[in-house]
């Protein structure tokens, strides 16, 4: 790497500079790090999330406080026209009973639709509408491959990816080819940014028709692992460095490609522990919102 005049003033691997703006320092090339035993393969992984479809039910505290707020609002309000009408209906009915049906005007007034009748008619109309249930079939069946499960939580796509001979449960991951060192035509061509690699990886794993919006050009998480010895010798690299990218599922069918992916699951943050290895799970968990 070229050593520019400003990089010589940066301490090795640190961000200590006195009067330089952050962006200037960021754009200055770092000094070459010493003592790297061998190259690491770079991977990008995609954390594809389905956002919550329904709001979660109110907690105990929220229910009590909502009731208090409703009560306060009722006490501080004026009567609505509907309530006034209801009171007048009651008064008319009373007057009619007192006069024992002699007064024709009262009789006519009492025969019109009362406020109570109107309320009942409205309630009947509402009962005729059947909203979709928040707890779906997939919830009851525990179908982890379905997107209709756990509608009030975020779901993350986890795949059983084929690696060499075996498979492994992980987020969809693809190798990043460094354009500067590799002159190749076709997939993973020279000059791809990690984000582009992530997008290509996702399409390769779950089909080209998925509509995912990626959240920015920067990775959100990092995980490093060493290859087993035979693979180290074979590939010439110590291991892999995985950079996680986040994406939001906007629609489109998720069709896992059979020759890359054996199986897939949509899991909440809490359920990831059951599927992923602990070190990997910790790295993934750090970049997720997990309180739902």
């Amino acid at each position: 790497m070229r050593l520019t005049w400003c990089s010589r003033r940066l301490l090795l691997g640190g961000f200590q500079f006195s009067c330089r703006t952050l962006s200037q320092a960021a754009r200055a090339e770092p000094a070459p790090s010493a003592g790297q035993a061998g190259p690491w393969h770079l991977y990008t992984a995609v954390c594809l999330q389905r956002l919550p479809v329904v709001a979660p039910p109110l907690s105990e505290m929220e229910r009590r406080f909502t009731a208090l707020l409703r009560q306060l609002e009722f006490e501080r309000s004026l009567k609505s026209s509907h309530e006034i009408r209801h009171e007048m209906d009651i008064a008319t009915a009373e007057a009619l009973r007192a006069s024992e049906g002699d007064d024709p005007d009262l009789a006519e007034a009492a025969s019109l639709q009362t406020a109570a009748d109107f309320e009942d008619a409205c309630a009947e109309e509402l009962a005729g509408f059947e909203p979709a249930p928040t707890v779906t079939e997939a919830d009851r069946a525990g179908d982890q491959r379905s997107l209709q499960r756990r509608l009030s939580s975020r779901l993350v796509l986890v795949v059983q990816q084929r690696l060499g001979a075996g498979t492994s449960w992980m987020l969809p991951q693809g190798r990043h080819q460094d354009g500067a060192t590799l002159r190749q035509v076709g997939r993973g061509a020279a000059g791809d940014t990690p984000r582009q690699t992530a997008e290509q990886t996702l399409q390769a794993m779950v089909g080209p028709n998925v509509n995912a919006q990626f959240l920015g050009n920067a990775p959100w998480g990092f995980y490093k692992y060493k290859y087993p010895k035979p693979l180290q010798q074979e590939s010439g690299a110590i291991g892999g460095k995985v950079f996680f990218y986040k994406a939001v599922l906007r629609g489109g069918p998720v069709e896992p490609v059979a020759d890359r992916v054996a199986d897939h699951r949509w899991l909440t943050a809490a359920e990831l522990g059951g599927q992923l290895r602990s070190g990997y799970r910790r790295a993934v968990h750090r970049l997720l919102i997990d309180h739902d």
Partner: protein
Amino acid sequence: MALSLGLSTVQRLAANVLDMSLSRSLCALTISTRRVISTSSPAAIAVSHPLCAEPLKKKKRIDPAVVRAREERRRRKLEKAIRRLEKSSRQLKPLAEMELPREVRAELSERRRPARPLTTEEANERFDLMKEWTRHRREQHVADVAVLRRIQESRAKALRELRAESFQLYCAAIEEDPDLVPWAHSGPTLTPPIDGYDAPDGDYVDTTRRWE
């Protein structure tokens, strides 16, 4: 016409009569003062081409103090007008949506609810519940901040590692993403959408107020 007039004729005519007759013909009169040698005594009077305009009035000199006084009066008038307009803009205009409708305001006495006094127990319960709620919301906020900080740190670490690995990739990663802003998402609803729901057509009455 005037060339035929002799000097004696000009002397006999009064000044205003001369002026009137000239203006009727829209001409101006000139009398030459150059030395002319001639055997007869020409009047040296000439008449110009028709001018189609009156000669300009003589400009009277105005006292500078009077001028300044006039300017001052004009400025004070304008300032007063500006202050009046600004006062109007400082006043808060009434919002129709925030005011009670006219019909309701007329029947205010009938619409008031009978004030039901709270017992001490009820008042204490409400007070305690509100305190519990503020504690609960604060805990939620603290938890949210912790989650966000954890995610930020995860990203900072990822960027550090990427920078250590490859500077070019790092520069590509910290580029702005123009598709990210504006971000739009319609949030969670109370019930999920019904598949293939056919919303029934309805009537509505447009009550938008128009001022014309």
